[in-house]
């Protein structure tokens, strides 16, 4: 079980109770530090390219083509996975699963640690997951695994991830892919 968090006897460390808040507009968050977006993008690319079983967890907001932006993002995420040499495990349905979650097929926000343990995932990107489910899952992952979590968020970000990029739309994803290619070349991957 995880270390006892600061939030009373909850096993879950809760970032806001440690004074960590989401980054301001135009900035990103690396652990507790607010940094320029590009610095965070480089670090995220590096972590993804150097960690075991790096995985992208796309959520319903990029899995369903409910608007043009979602369709564009979905294609870019596929490209991102190729550049980062990462797997993809979707989070497409937030309901509890019966009789049990199939960790090979999907990640469920109610027990994301099972998927991460089962696949020995050491770095993960959450993208297109509704904020609440992302935050619930990120708290559990943070508490119960040694996986480095990354939130690429279309809104204001997630302080419970180890790295947060906020306001990420297709143009920002294009920028990230470009940076990831550069980092990949630098690492000789």
């Amino acid at each position, binding site marked *: 079980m995880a270390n006892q968090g600061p*939030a009373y006897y*909850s*096993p*879950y460390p*809760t*970032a*806001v*109770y440690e004074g960590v*808040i*989401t980054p301001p507009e135009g900035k990103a968050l690396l652990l507790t530090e607010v940094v320029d977006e590009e610095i965070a993008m480089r670090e995220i690319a590096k972590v993804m390219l150097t960690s075991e079983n790096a995985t992208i967890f796309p959520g*319903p*907001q990029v*899995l*369903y083509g*409910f608007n043009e932006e979602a369709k564009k993002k979905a294609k870019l995420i596929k490209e991102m996975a190729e550049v980062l040499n990462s797997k993809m495990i979707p989070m497409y*349905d*937030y*309901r*509890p*699963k*019966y*009789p*049990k979650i199939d960790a090979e097929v999907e990640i469920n926000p*109610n*027990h994301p640690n099972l998927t991460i343990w089962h696949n020995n995932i050491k770095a993960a990107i959450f993208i297109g997951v*509704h*904020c*609440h*489910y992302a*935050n*619930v899952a990120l*708290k*559990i992952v943070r*508490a*119960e695994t040694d996986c480095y979590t990354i939130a690429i968020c279309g*809104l*204001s*970000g997630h*302080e*419970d991830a180890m790295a947060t990029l906020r306001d990420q739309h297709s143009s920002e994803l294009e920028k990230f892919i470009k940076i990831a290619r550069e980092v990949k070349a630098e690492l000789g991957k």
Partner: protein
Amino acid sequence: MSKITDMTKTHNWSGQKLVTADHLLFDAPREKHFMTGSEVLKEAVKRCTVDASVSYPITPQSEAAHLIGELWAEGYVGVYFRGENEFGVMSEVAGCAMAGARTITTTSGPGTLRAMENFAQWSGTRIPCQLILMARGINSPLTIQPDNLEVSYMLETGCQIWYAENVQELFDMSIAAFIVAEKPDVHVPIITVVDGFFVSHTREAVMLPADDIALFPYEPYKSPLPPIDSETPPGRFLRDPFVMKSNYISYATHASWQWEVRSAVERSRPYAKHFLNGLVHVTGEEDAEIAFVTCGTASNQAKEAHRELMKLGIKTKVIKLRTIRPFPTEELIEALEGVKNVFVPEFNVVGWLEKEVKTALYKKSDADVVGGPRVAGGMSMPAEAIIQEVMEKINPGKGA
């Protein structure tokens, strides 16, 4: 009458021009009016492009609910209906909000308690609805008198709680409340409290912007949970009551969920600071060693006591808390710098605000906190009662 389908990018269904909250609250020119709290709430709702309102009568909020109903008849509110009782109302509010509607309701006293289970359900499902709580005594013996004991029951529901002192604050707060509650990283319900009768039934001068402007509509697709919509993906999910399925879902998941709801309330701080111009308002003498920590109309009475004590050469200040959840701990500690005696006047018998203040100050302030004066069951709190409390403390045995 215009129709709900008439919404455009620039105007809502009632023909009001859509504007930002900043424009509505800070930039738009205002005119003076003379209104009760209930009437002013109608004016606020009129400018909020509200999709749905559910009502059930209970004194003293009945008039406010009735006036929101008139707004529906006038074409300003999308849907309006009466629930079967307060439990039903709050459940129906949940349904409206989960479906993506900007939703408001009002209640008071025993109505609040009758609906109690729903408030934790509201926050648990992260809906951004607004409850205007016109605080009234809790029954036994039966009462309709003003009293804010019921707020103590609401403190741990996971909802944001703001407290308005007067009619003007009720107007401004209830508009800002929607905007803060609807921020995707907050997105938990908001309870805007006023002291019943003292505010709801008091006619005061109030500055209002024109009524031909209104807030942009709520955008449900920015919700942290998918809105219930069985037709349009990504929304084919009900908000599953997964906690019931404890055989499959770990209790720890429930813990994470609960901390996330409370984290969301904490994330509201910067937005509330902006729209409320700070989480606390301080009036009086900056170098005072005596402070009153208050909310609601107790602030008004404390300000009166401050003026009288000034005549006696005793410096005091009033620290009015505008948010109770999140509790403005940092701002309170800062405002109490140099203060030796803190008094917490409140309109209830249990002293819930005193407990909150003591919890916040524990090991962080050397000030001595006196829980009082307290009045309950509809009694008024004359400034003399506050002055007496102060004099007995600083001048023991000699009284006021």
